[in-house]
């Protein structure tokens, strides 16, 4: 499929203008993750003081889980909120009547997701290291493939959120924030899959992020990077990516047919 980097660049430029003109928009990228980090950080400090046995490693489980979860969440948010930004400002029709391919539009929202992840990640990494002596680099060689898979899955969840908002209108806007949390209980962010009731475990294992969070705990417990987990995450991402793209395309077709595209763009 033809794909123009210039078009993606132009679309991303719009968000760069937005964030540089309104730095206050970056606050959410700093504020919420920091609050989360403080809560989980102090909780684990408390557990460490009052717990017994090998609590020190679980400190890093919780903080690591929180940071990696935020990577997934910010990536999804970048995609969904970029789309919403166009809806809120009634700009969507201008973009859709411009020579912009769907893949370029989605691609630009993914780049925005990546930028948002970057900002949050830098801040969380620094604060976690300074306040709780948690070093993200202790994930070693696993770090990049872990992050990569979470960012990919975030993009795909973002595409699904966007498709749903297109279809169900602004009433469905809260999905942009809710969708990641639908899956969080199953994603084994803070506890292993084995904790889940046995009938839920197979469902949990269909999520590309589950083997990543499991893998993170493996590495933090001092074991080598479980490459098999990275591999299953990649395969699952491939499946989710394909399904998300098909779902997005089907919804776009539907909203073009029903006139809902124009409606969501002009309401």
């Amino acid at each position, binding site marked *: 499929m033809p794909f123009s980097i210039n078009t993606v660049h132009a679309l991303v*430029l719009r968000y760069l203008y937005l964030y540089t003109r309104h730095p206050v928009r970056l606050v959410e990228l700093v504020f919420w993750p920091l609050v989360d980090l403080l809560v989980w950080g102090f909780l684990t400090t408390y557990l460490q003081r009052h717990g017994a046995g090998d609590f020190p490693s679980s400190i890093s489980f919780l903080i690591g889980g929180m940071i990696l979860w935020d990577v997934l969440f910010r990536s999804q948010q970048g995609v969904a909120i970029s789309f919403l930004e166009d809806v809120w400002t009634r700009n969507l029709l*201008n973009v859709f009547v411009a020579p912009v391919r769907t893949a370029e539009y989605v691609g630009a929202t993914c780049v925005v997701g990546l930028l948002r992840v970057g900002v949050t990640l830098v801040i969380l990494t620094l604060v976690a290291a300074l306040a709780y002596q948690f070093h993200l680099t202790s994930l070693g060689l696993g770090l990049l493939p872990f992050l990569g898979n979470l960012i990919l899955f975030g993009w795909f969840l973002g595409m699904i959120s966007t498709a749903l908002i297109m279809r169900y209108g602004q009433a469905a806007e809260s999905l942009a924030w809710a969708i990641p949390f639908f899956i969080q209980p199953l994603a084994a962010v803070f506890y292993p899959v084995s904790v889940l009731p046995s009938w839920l475990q197979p469902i949990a294992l269909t999520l590309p992020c589950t083997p990543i969070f499991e893998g993170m705990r493996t590495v933090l417990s001092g074991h080598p990077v479980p490459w098999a987990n990275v591999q299953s995450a990649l395969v699952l991402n491939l499946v989710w990516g394909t399904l998300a793209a098909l779902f997005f395309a089907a919804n776009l077709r539907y909203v073009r047919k029903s006139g809902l595209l124009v409606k969501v763009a*002009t309401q």
Partner: protein
Amino acid sequence: MPGTTPILEADRLVKTFGTSTALDGLSFTLAESESLGLLGVNGAGKTTAMNLLLGLTTPTSGTIRIFGLDLWKHRIEILRQVNFSSAYTALPSNLLVWQNLNVFAKLYGVARPKQRIEELLELLDITHLRKSVTGTLSAGESTRVNLAKALLNKPRLLLLDEPTASLDPDIADRVRKLLRKLQHENGLSILYTSHNMRDIHEVCDRLIFLHGGKVLAEGTPDHIAEKFNRSSLEDLFIGVARGEVDAIGLK
């Protein structure tokens, strides 16, 4: 000289939404350097037709060819040379005017964006708004910024849905003259909707009077009113709206 292939050919366009029919077999062509007005009461199907022509909505049946190409097979290629402005879209309110225009100049692959933007700001008499926040503009100012966006890529085909809705008489007059000028000098083809009969008279070479998604009449503004024994377009319009003309028209 206008080419032989029409710029735009709509062939038996039908659009239904559930059980209601918004367009019921609309066919027309638009020649190079021609300006065609779509006229009709609220709900006649004007905006629906525009949305189909822009690829925002897919037709239930019928085909659209622009520059001789099938819209759905060559959408991107076609959209590069088309543009659109309406009363119900806006550029992002939280950016500066020049930032918005710059983004769209890049989206349309405009060669020298800065120069083109300055040119258009001047043409529309809004140079002083270059650094204004788009969301703080008055309705008429933002209409002109939207028009600047619509002219960025020097389109061959311009679709305008009630573009002068919020302009004061002076600015509206200037915009009409500008459109006329672009039409004659650059061979721009325009599809235009408006509820302002003055607009229609001054901008449109030819008119299609839509009613219930069907073409009620087609011709020059004067010819259409005459055909229905009405003293003016406005008079005809009121006649259609009140159901006095419908029967004669459909005969």
